[in-house]
């Protein structure tokens, strides 16, 4: 993997006609996610970020570092996500701010407990959006991304 580049999309909008791949060293781990998973003792992770964001592999590596397994849930398939929370005890959801709001509301409507840990990615233009009320009382870690998979420098 030495010297290998992983490409991430240049835009959050999949229909952006100028969308192209942005290279980043593949060996760079998703350190904020890895740190959050380890500190929570997370063992059962659900990934609900869009697949075109190209974060499946970095999320998997963070899972390995935490000793957790990964379940990838298509963002359009909330019912399956609900079954996964119930059937395999998902303890952590990795998603973006919009989906965090929609999915947590869906779970509560469906009488399904909201998992205790959420790692939420915020596009830079959504940095100020408040967290959904449904996530009150659960552990939330947030990270702003300049484009999918590219975290903004922490200040």
């Amino acid at each position, binding site marked *: 993997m030495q010297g290998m580049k992983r490409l991430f999309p240049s835009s959050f909008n999949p229909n952006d006609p100028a969308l192209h791949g942005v290279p980043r060293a593949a060996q760079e781990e998703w350190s904020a996610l890895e740190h959050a998973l380890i500190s929570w003792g997370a063992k059962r992770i659900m990934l609900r970020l869009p*697949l075109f964001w190209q974060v499946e592999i970095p999320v*998997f590596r963070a899972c390995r570092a935490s000793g957790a397994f990964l379940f990838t849930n298509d963002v359009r398939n909330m019912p399956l996500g609900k079954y996964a929370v119930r059937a395999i005890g998902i303890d952590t959801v990795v998603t973006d701010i919009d989906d965090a709001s929609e999915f947590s509301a869906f779970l509560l409507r469906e009488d399904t407990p909201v998992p205790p840990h959420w790692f939420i990615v915020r596009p830079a233009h959504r940095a100020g959006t408040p967290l959904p009320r449904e996530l009150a009382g659960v552990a939330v870690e947030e990270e702003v991304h300049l484009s999918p998979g590219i975290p903004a420098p922490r200040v």
Partner: protein
Amino acid sequence: MMSSSRAYEVLRHATEASGPDFYRKLYGVRGERLSVSSREEWEALPLLTKEHLLERPMSDRSFLPPEGIDHVRATSGTSGRGALFCPRTPLRGMDYRLAYHDFKRPMLAFTVPAMPHWHESFMERSGGPTAVVYDPGNPDASVRIARDADVDSISVFAFHMLAIGESMKREGMGGRIRFIEMAGEACTRKLFEYLRETFPNAVILPFYGSSEVEDSPIGMPCRPITGEEPLSLYHGKESHYLEIVDPDTGKVLEPQEGAEGELVITAYPGEPCAFPLLRFRTGDMVRVISEKCPAHGSWSFTVLGRSGLDFIKVPGGVVRSDEIERVLRLFGDEVTDVYSLSVEERQTAQGPRLALRLLVEPKRPVRLEKFAEAVSREMRVSPHLTWAKGVEEGRFDPLVVGVLEPDGGQKKHRRIVRAPAV
């Protein structure tokens, strides 16, 4: 293929008193473990079904703690029995791919048949190219990233290939693709012709797997898809013990050339293993093609379709999806091999009668009534009975042929649909 003695060892391992009690309960084991030493004892073991797996939560079934599980896969739930969550360890036994491609450049991969992170670990031995994740909801965005990553291989579901092909045509990428691995369904001649034209330099390899089988693929492809054979050919791998059974009685059938039955699999990849699979009914009907595959030793087979879905019993025989495809290919100048067949049972004074309505995709204007007669003469429901002969004998209604509505879909056609009895 795994030897029977190795399968007996897997049984002993899976029923150890120190392990999960899943199989101990299924088989009613009271001692330290369950041992068998003969084929008769083995075949007397109950067959494992998806219903058995659905009865117990994944945490009860898994032989590994969460930290030992690589990822979890869910079955689609399309069978109407609900989604099943299956723990997975990294795939093994896929080195056969190296005979077809060098994997030195990045690959475009969906999460099926294998996870992108697994593809990346597989490719590490070739210098470590990356995997670009395919998003079916956003094919153009995925393909643009694949373009910039300079991918030369693809691993996805067969029904993804049209969207990928169209997007790659727009990006001028078709010629650079050298390896395509497709899961999920057999490749129709129409899809094959499309792929051949769009990706002229690609080897096209089928992948036969199942969400319930941690140690996928179930069968290793004997050779690439050439478009000459209607269905793909597979043989078992070292970590699988395969049996075929009568889908109605569960009785084991000899894997003789031409034998057809439901595939039953015992799978154990070695450690780590999240769930040794013992005598699992795959629900897939297969036909034995060769008792001893010249290239791979063990018996080879082709997948006919889902048991109870892609074939239908009729008086005196069976209407099978692969037979319909075979017949349609005889008329390849007139129609493609994409079809939908509805089966209707009609009550008459002489008892129930079956009527078939076959919808086809003409390549040019076709006289449908004449075409129906020609198909009836060719379509066999048993070695000695064609549909036309059955009509003559009053067993069946005459075949009716219509035209498929074009909708661009590859997946929902080419199958048998049952209509309610009227």
